């Protein structure tokens, strides 16, 4: 990215272009400044750390959503997967040692994502509908496995995870570090690795990709599987924060994740989007909720304001395409 930025700054009209390309960042900065101005508690370290912790779960699934959206797909199952996988993780943590519980959960997430991946890639099912079906199924399974009640962590492993999830390293919450790590990996993969090149190519012209010898199906399959694995990661994090796995978790998170990705400038037609901007999208959404809470705006007017800000943020982005 550094390279891109430099070369753009040096070209004529470069700064303007830079502002336009990374305008999500500027919307974010705008919001931060605004928030700091109207609430004197906003800029406290505890609030910022809360904010980071609050967005990490949705943030991680947003990265999965991003890579799915880059291929021109969509993954509605992630919210339900978080619930199901949180339940599975809570069950596992109570019966096997921590590392096994973590790895197994992630593997199961990968496999669950593979189900959508298989339907989309090899059965040519519309992603919306394949993942909608998985969303329904996963939520159902979550309730079945948990018998409808949250499953509490009971082992030292569980305690360790709870500590981990609520503590910080150098002032940054551990789970936020994981989230940011995932963002960085994604950004690097998307930008500097063949994997990113290929999924972006698939999203911008699937037929041309096929005829260029790309194993389109394999990659389409993979992105859903990865999205599933990331949902598992998010599930582990949110379950650890509350010390339990509940089938009610992740309700409608898929919508927030999609909104974050789109606010981050990605196109739902595929082929366009970046991990850094998705991070900004996640932060913007989280910030809106946080600042409205701090300002004591009641819940329902909050929804109205949130919707309006989403519209506003996306409208600002239109300049990018010019």
């Amino acid at each position, binding site marked *: 990215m550094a390279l891109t930025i430099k070369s753009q700054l040096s070209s004529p009209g470069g700064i303007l272009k830079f502002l336009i390309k990374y305008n999500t960042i500027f919307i974010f900065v705008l919001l931060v400044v605004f928030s700091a101005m109207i609430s004197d508690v906003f800029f406290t370290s505890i609030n910022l750390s809360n904010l980071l912790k609050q967005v990490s779960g949705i943030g991680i699934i947003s990265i999965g959503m991003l890579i799915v959206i880059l291929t021109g797909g969509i993954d509605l199952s992630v919210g339900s997967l978080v619930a199901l996988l949180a339940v599975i993780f809570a069950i596992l943590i109570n019966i096997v040692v921590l590392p096994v519980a973590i790895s197994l959960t992630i593997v199961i997430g990968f496999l669950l994502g593979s189900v959508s991946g298989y339907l989309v890639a090899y059965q040519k099912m519309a992603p919306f509908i394949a993942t909608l079906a998985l969303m329904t199924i996963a939520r159902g399974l979550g309730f079945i496995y948990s018998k409808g009640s949250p499953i509490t962590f009971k082992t030292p492993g569980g305690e360790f995870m709870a500590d981990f999830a609520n503590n910080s390293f150098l002032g940054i919450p551990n789970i936020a570090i994981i989230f940011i790590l995932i963002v960085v990996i994604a950004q690097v993969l998307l930008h500097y690795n063949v994997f990113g090149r290929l999924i972006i190519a698939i999203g911008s012209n699937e037929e041309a990709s096929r005829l260029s010898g790309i194993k389109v199906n394999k990659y389409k399959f993979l992105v859903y599987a990865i999205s599933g694995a990331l949902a598992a990661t998010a599930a582990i994090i949110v379950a650890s924060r509350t*010390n339990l796995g509940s089938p009610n978790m992740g309700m409608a998170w898929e919508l927030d994740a999609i909104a974050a990705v789109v606010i981050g400038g990605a196109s739902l037609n595929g082929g366009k989007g970046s991990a850094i901007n998705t991070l900004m999208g996640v932060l913007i959404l989280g910030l809106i909720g946080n600042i409205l809470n701090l300002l004591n705006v*009641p819940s*329902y007017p909050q929804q109205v304001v949130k919707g309006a800000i989403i519209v506003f943020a996306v409208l600002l982005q239109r300049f990018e395409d010019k």
Partner: protein
Amino acid sequence: VDQSKSTQANVNSSEDTSEKVESAMDLTGMKIGYCTPSLNAPYYQALLQSIEASVEKNGMIFMSADGQDDINKQIAAVEDLITKGVDALLLNPKDPDALVGVTKMAAKAGIPVFIIDSSINPSADYVTTIQSNNLANGELAGEWLAKKFGSKKMNIALLSGNAGNPVGKTRKQGLLQGITEEQLRTLGYIDLNIKTQAYTDWSYAGGLKAMEDALVAHPDINVVITESDVCVLGAIKAIAQAGKTDDILIVAGADGQKEAIKYIMDTDFYGCTAMNSPVQIGKNAVEYAIQYFNGKRDFPKTAFTAPLLITKENAAKYYDPKALF
């Protein structure tokens, strides 16, 4: 079922406490349908299982339907139960007005309707309402809180479930009523200082986030009142994280969930909760239905389980680590 009997087993035990009800007629093959407004909370799950256990214990057939948190879907679910020809319908209405129509439909089909857990508009066609006394429970908790604080200034954060929920509303009313009544009685004035209300969607994670933001915005909060234990169980993490367990007192208007009881036993910051036993409601409901089958018709329009406050003093009695809820 008289009141004394209903208080006896107010414990959400995991053991099969369902008992066989005496019945003159042969209950075999009778179908009892239960329609829940949603299953998105452990409480509803526990209620469903309690009814199921009681129904089966008495040799009857259990049928359930789920409103999936949607008024219209609950109507559809009830219609389907009626179609299946249940002999009695236990209805936990998502909305007191919206479900009136289907109770009439059931009555037309000759099916007695028992409203359980929530309330329904009196114009509905039903035999009786079986519920815990949310208002009275809330009042007990409110009173307890006001007593505890005396003239000391309260800065309250209210954690609610979701807006527009009638049960939550009643519990909230109870809590506030309890506080104000007690203050008037002992102080002669009302000092009700609710700094913020936050919605938790009846979930742990929702409570956690709501509490985090509330604590940042209102660092002086020293009381958290809530419509349900579930709203505050996640929030405790935020309170602990902020290092405020010594400064904040939690008071729940309902449920007596086992985790909450455990906190009440083990800590000082979880003050009290009030018993809203899904097990008891379920058992009573089935019992009423059986009595109806046996010809009894003179039911009171409302049958409350007895209000009961759980505090440190009596918590151990109601704590069962293996309970479902």
